[in-house]
C-alpha cells in the first residue's frame, strides 16, 4: 500500500482541493448532540471529532426516497429515471461505515446489480478518517474496526497531521495531482500511528469477538430478556433508519392528481413496522413487537458470507439514536454472559 503524510497546516487546503473532485460532503455539528453529513461550503465548519451522523452514509447511495419510473397510466407506458450521478466526495467516513458500504455493495452489486446504486457508487469518492471509540462503539467485536479496501484515501490521526493510506486508483490520482500537499512518512509518524492504534484499542468497552454471537442469540431466543427489552421498544424504526447496513425498502406507485400519470417510488422501510411482515390476505409473519424486535437482532447478527463478517458493523448508531434507551450492545453482552473475553 502507498502511504503519504499531510501536515495539519495543509489540511484546509486539502479539503478545498477535494472540491475539485466533486461536491464535498462532510460531518458538521448541527446541535448539541448531533452531527449530519452536509454539503460543505466553508471547510472550517467540518467536524473532525464526529463519531456518528444522524443519517448514515447509505443515504448517498440509497436515498430515503427515490423515483424509479415515470408512468403514463392511460397508455400503460413507463420509462425509467436513470440519471448519471455527478461525482461527489464523502469526507470523514470511519472504518465501520466503509465496511457498511462494502456490505451494501454485496447486496446491490454482486448479483442482479442495481443500476441506480451502481451509478452513485461509481460517482462517490470516499475519504476515510480514523476515530477513537466512545461507549457506544463495538466495531472491535464485529471485526470492522479497521478497513482494508473501499476508500480512496484513509487518514490516520498523527500529532501534527495525518498518515494517509492510499486505497484506490482515484486515491492515487488525488495524491499525484496535488504533490504540494503531501510529504513522505517518517519513522516518528509510524511510531505515532502505532501509538494511536494502541490507544484506540484500549478505549473499547469490551474485548473479544462477536463471531459466536449469532449462535448464542439463536440459543437464547426464549430468554426473558427479549420480552423485557421488546416491551420498551416504541417500534419507531430509528434503529434501522440510522443503521449503516439496514437497507429494506418499499416500492409504491403514486398517481398524480390528474390520474393520468404516476411515479413508481422506492423509499426506506423498516422491519420494525408492522406492515413489513405482512403478506396478501393479512397474514403477518411478525405479528408481535417482540417478533419484530428479535428479527432485527437476528438479521443484524446474521453472517454476511461475501465479507465474512456480520451485517452489524458495531457503529452503535441504533443505541445512540434509540428514544427508548434500548442498548443493542449491552443486550448482546448480557446474553453471552459467562464469556469473559
Amino acid at each position, binding site marked *: 500500500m502507498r502511504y503519504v503524510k499531510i501536515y495539519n497546516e495543509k489540511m484546509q487546503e486539502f479539503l478545498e482541493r477535494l472540491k475539485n473532485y466533486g461536491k464535498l460532503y462532510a460531518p458538521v455539528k448541527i446541535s448539541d448532540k448531533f452531527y449530519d453529513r452536509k454539503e460543505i461550503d466553508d471547510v472550517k465548519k467540518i467536524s473532525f471529532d464526529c463519531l456518528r451522523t444522524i443519517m448514515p452514509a447509505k443515504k448517498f447511495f440509497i436515498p430515503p426516497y427515490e423515483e*424509479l*419510473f415515470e*408512468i*403514463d*397510466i392511460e397508455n*400503460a*407506458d*413507463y420509462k*425509467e429515471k*436513470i440519471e448519471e450521478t455527478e461525482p461527489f466526495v464523502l469526507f470523514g467516513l470511519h472504518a465501520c461505515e466503509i465496511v457498511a458500504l462494502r456490505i451494501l455493495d454485496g*447486496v*446491490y452489486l454482486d*448479483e*442482479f*446489480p*442495481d*443500476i*441506480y446504486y*451502481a451509478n452513485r457508487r461509481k460517482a462517490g469518492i470516499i475519504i476515510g478518517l480514523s476515530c477513537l471509540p466512545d461507549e457506544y462503539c463495538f466495531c472491535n467485536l464485529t471485526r470492522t474496526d479497521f478497513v482494508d479496501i473501499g476508500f480512496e484515501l484513509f487518514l490516520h490521526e498523527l500529532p501534527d497531521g495525518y498518515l494517509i493510506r492510499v486505497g484506490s486508483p482515484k486515491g492515487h490520482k488525488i495524491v499525484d495531482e496535488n504533490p504540494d500537499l503531501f510529504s513522505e512518512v517518517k519513522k516518528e509518524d509510524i511510531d505515532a500511528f502505532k501509538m494511536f492504534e494502541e490507544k484506540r484499542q484500549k478505549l473499547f468497552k469490551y474485548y473479544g469477538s462477536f463471531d459466536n454471537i449469532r449462535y448464542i442469540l*439463536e440459543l437464547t*431466543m426464549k430468554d426473558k430478556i427479549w420480552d423485557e427489552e421488546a416491551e420498551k421498544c416504541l417500534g419507531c424504526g430509528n434503529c434501522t433508519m440510522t443503521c449503516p447496513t*439496514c*437497507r*429494506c*425498502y*418499499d*416500492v*409504491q*406507485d403514486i*398517481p398524480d392528481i390528474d390520474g393520468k*400519470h*404516476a411515479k*413508481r417510488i*422506492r423509499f426506506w*422501510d423498516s*422491519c420494525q413496522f408492522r406492515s*413489513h411482515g*405482512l*403478506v*396478501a*390476505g393479512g*397474514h403477518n*409473519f*411478525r405479528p408481535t413487537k417482540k*417478533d419484530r424486535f*428479535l*428479527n432485527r437482532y*437476528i*438479521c443484524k447478527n*446474521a*453472517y*454476511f*458470507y461475501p465479507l465474512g463478517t456480520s451485517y452489524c458493523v458495531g457503529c452503535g448508531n441504533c443505541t445512540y439514536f434509540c428514544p427508548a434507551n434500548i442498548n443493542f450492545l449491552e443486550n448482546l453482552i448480557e446474553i453471552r454472559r459467562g464469556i469473559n473475553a
Partner: protein
Amino acid sequence: MSNESIYLPRPATIKNITKFTESESLFELVMDDNRPLNHQPGQFVEVSIMGIGEAPISVSSSPTKKKSFEICVRAVGNVTRAMHRLKIGDKVGIRGPFGKGFDTEFLKGKDILFIAGGLGIAPLRSLINYVLDHRADYGRAIILYGCKAPHELLFREEVISWRKRKDIECHLTVDKVPEGEHWDHNVGVVTTLIPKIDFNPSTTYAVVCGPPIMYRFVIRTLKERGLAEDHIILSLERRMKCGVGKCGHCQINGIYVCQDGPVFNYSEIKDLPEAL
C-alpha cells in the same frame, strides 16, 4: 455492466381470463416481445399494473406450455384487485421469473405426493402439469387438494380431468359444505386425506403448497406416516417487493426467500426461526 435495470418490467398482454370464483381468476399472458418466460415450475413473477404497483405472483402454468403462461390471481390487495378489473387485450408488466423452483430433475423417478391448500394449487399446478407432460419420467402422482368450500375449488375442469386419468390419483376435500352446495368427496381439512392414501415413504416426496397454518399440520401428519423431513418440499410465501434479493421483505435470517426459495426442502428451513 448492462444499463438495463432489474426493476424494469417487460410488457405483456392478457390473452385470456378464466373466472374461477368471485375473487380468483386465471390470467393467460403473452410477452409482447415474444420471448418465452422460460420459467421453472414453482418460480414467481413480479406483476406490474402501472399506476397501481407491483406484486409477486407464482406462475401457474407448466413451462411445457411455451407461447404463453398463466397466473392465478386472488383479488386481495391493490395490485390483485386492479388485475381483476383488466380485460382481455389489456397490458401488464412482468419481471422475472425469479427464485428457485421445484427441482424437476431431482424428482425424476420418484413418487410425488402433491398437497395443495386453497390458492396453493396455483404454484403446484405448474409442477403437476409439468409432471403430466413428462409422465413417464416420474413415479406415482398423487394429488391431495383441499379448499374451504366446494364453490372455492380452483381449476375445477382441470381437476375433474385429473380425476379421470388412470395414471394419477386425485383426492379432493373441503373444510365444510355450506347448505345448498353439493359435494361428493371428502369433508375435512386437507390433512384428513393423508391417512386415507397408501404411499411408500422411501420413494415418495411430498410437495406442499398452501397457507402458512396448513404447513404445520400437514408436515406433522406426513411425519407420522413415516415420511422423512428431507422428503418434504414446500414453497414459502413472502411479500417480495423486488424479487432480486435487495428490498429485504422476504429475508429470514441470512436467507432471501426470493432468491434461495420460494421452494425449499423442509429440512433446510425447519430450524429457521419464523420460516413457517
